[in-house]
C-alpha cells in the first residue's frame, strides 16, 4: 500500500513519488508533500510475530510463535503480537483485559475538563442576564476554590483564569451584598 493522500486517503501514484517527495493525487487532484520516516518501513516486521525454532520459548497464546517477552503481571510468555507495552513494562492481552479499570485510570490524560475556563466564562457570560449573577457569583467562587488543585490543561502553566474568574465573582458578590445592605437601610430609614 503506497502513501495515502492527506485529503481523500486514496493512494498516491508511486511513479511521482519516485522523482521526489511530492505527488498529485489522481483522485482529488491535490498536490501532496510527503515526509516518510523509517517506522513506515519497519512496521510490518514489528507486528508480525516470528515463527519459533525448536527449543525456543513460545508465546502462551500462539504456540508456534517465538516469545519476545514475559508478562509483568502473570509471567506468561508473549510473542511480538501479544506484547502490550503498558507503563514501563510489558503485559499480556489477558492481564490488560482483566485490569481494564486500572488501565483507564492510568491513561486518564487523554482528556481534561477545563474548570478554570468555566470559572472565567460564567461570571462574564452571565452579565448578559445580570440578575442570575446573585447565584453564579458564589457558585463560581466555590468552583474556583474546590477545583483549584485539580489538574488543569496539560499545556497551560498558570491559573490566571481561576484568579480572574474568582476576582470577578467576588466583585459581583460584593455588589450584591452592597445592594441588599443598601435596600435594607433604605427600608429601615423609611420605616
Amino acid at each position: 500500500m503506497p502513501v495515502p493522500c492527506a485529503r481523500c486517503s486514496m493512494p498516491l501514484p508511486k511513479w511521482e513519488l519516485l522523482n521526489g517527495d511530492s505527488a498529485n493525487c489522481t483522485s482529488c487532484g491535490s498536490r501532496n508533500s510527503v515526509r516518510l520516516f523509517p517506522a513506515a518501513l519497519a512496521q510490518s516486521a514489528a507486528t508480525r510475530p516470528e515463527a519459533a525454532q525448536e527449543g525456543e520459548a513460545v508465546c502462551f497464546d500462539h504456540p508456534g510463535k517465538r516469545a519476545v517477552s514475559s508478562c509483568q503481571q502473570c509471567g506468561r510468555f508473549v510473542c511480538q503480537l501479544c506484547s502490550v507495552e503498558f507503563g514501563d513494562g510489558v503485559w499480556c492481552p489477558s492481564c490488560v483485559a482483566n485490569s481494564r479499570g486500572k488501565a483507564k485510570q492510568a491513561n486518564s490524560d487523554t482528556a481534561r475538563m477545563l474548570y478554570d475556563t468555566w470559572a472565567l466564562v460564567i461570571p462574564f457570560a452571565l452579565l448578559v442576564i445580570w440578575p442570575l449573577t446573585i447565584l453564579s457569583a458564589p457558585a463560581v467562587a466555590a468552583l474556583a476554590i474546590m477545583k483549584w488543585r485539580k489538574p488543569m490543561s496539560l499545556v497551560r502553566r498558570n491559573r490566571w483564569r481561576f484568579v480572574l474568574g474568582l476576582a470577578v465573582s467576588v466583585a459581583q458578590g460584593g455588589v450584591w451584598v452592597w445592594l441588599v445592605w443598601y435596600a435594607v437601610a433604605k427600608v429601615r430609614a423609611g420605616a
Partner: protein
Amino acid sequence: MPQERVKYRKLPGRRRGFLFGSSVWLGPDHLLLVKSARFREDYKRFYFRDVQAIVTAEASRFHISTRAALVVVAWLGMWIFAIGFGSAAAVLARTASHVEGWLLGAGALLLLAAWACISARLSCRCRIYTAVSSDELPSLYRRWTARRFLEQVQPYITQAQGAIDGNWAEAVEEKQVGPAPEGRVGLSMPGALGSVTMPPAAYAAWTTPVSAFFVGSLSVGGLANLGALRVSAQAGRWILLSSLLVQLGAAVAVMIQCYTGRLRTAMRNLAITALVAIAVWYYAVQIGVGMAVAYQSAQSKSPRMFPRQAQAWTLFEYPLARGSAGGITALLGLAGVVLGLRGERLREEKVSFNV
C-alpha cells in the same frame, strides 16, 4: 503515584474556532495533539518512534478564526461609525459620495478577497500516520504554517528513528502507511476495488446544474446591483431583494447537494461564505443606516419616532447598501467561477490520465 509534569513547547499552527480549537505541542519524546471544545480538551500523543509519515495536501480551507472575526467586527465598527456619524447627511441624501465609507468598504472587499485567495490557494490538510492511526492535524491549515511545523518536528523524529536511505517510494510500496484500510482502496490488494467503499468525495462532482445556477445568481445578481446604482431607488430595492432571495435559495440547494454527496465541499464552502457575507452585510446596513437616521432625526427640529428612512424596506434603497451587496456577491460569483474552472481542469486531467 503523582505523575511528573511534562513540559510542552508550542509548535507552529493553531486553529482558533468559535467553539472548537486545536494545536500541536512538542513533548520530550512525543507530539501532543490538543483538540479543545472550549471547556474540555482532548489529547492524543504521537511518539516520535511511531510516526510513519506526515503528509500535507493542498486543499482549500475557508476557516474563519476568532482573530479574523475580531478584525471583521473592528472593521464593521469603523464602517458603521464612518457612515453613521461621519456623514449622516450624505447617506440620507442617498448619494454615495462619502469617501470614508467607500474607502472602508473597498478595504473590506480587499481583505475579503485576500482571505478568499489565501483560503482557496494557500491552504492545506495535514495528516500524521502511525501504524494504528491516521489523524488530521487541524491546526495546520495554511501551507506556510505546515512548512514551519515540519521544519521543527522532522529533526526530532529523525533523531528517534534515523533517516531513510535510498529511494523509499519503492520500499514503501510493499508496506502499509497508516492503519489497515477500511474505506481505502489498496493497489497491492487484488480484487479489493469491488469490496471496499470509496469515499464519496471521489464521486462528487465539482459542478452541477444547481451549483452553476448558484454561481450564476451570484455573478448576475452582483453585476445587476452594481449596474442598477443609477436607477430609481424603488427599482434598485426590488432588484436587490429578488437577487438576494434567489442567491439564498441557491446557496441552500448547493448545501443540500453537498450533504447528499453529489457535490464537492468547495462549492458548499462558497455557499456558506455567501450566506455569512449576506447576513453580515444585512446587519451592517441596518445598523449603519439606522444610526445615520437616528443622528439626522436628533439633529432635526421635529424628530419622528419612526422615520421612513429607518424602515426595513427602505434600507435596501440606499446606493451604498446596494453597491456593497453587489460588490460582495459579484466577488463571490467570481470565486465560484474560478472554483468551477479549476474543477473542470482537474476533471479533464483525470479523464486524459484514465484514457
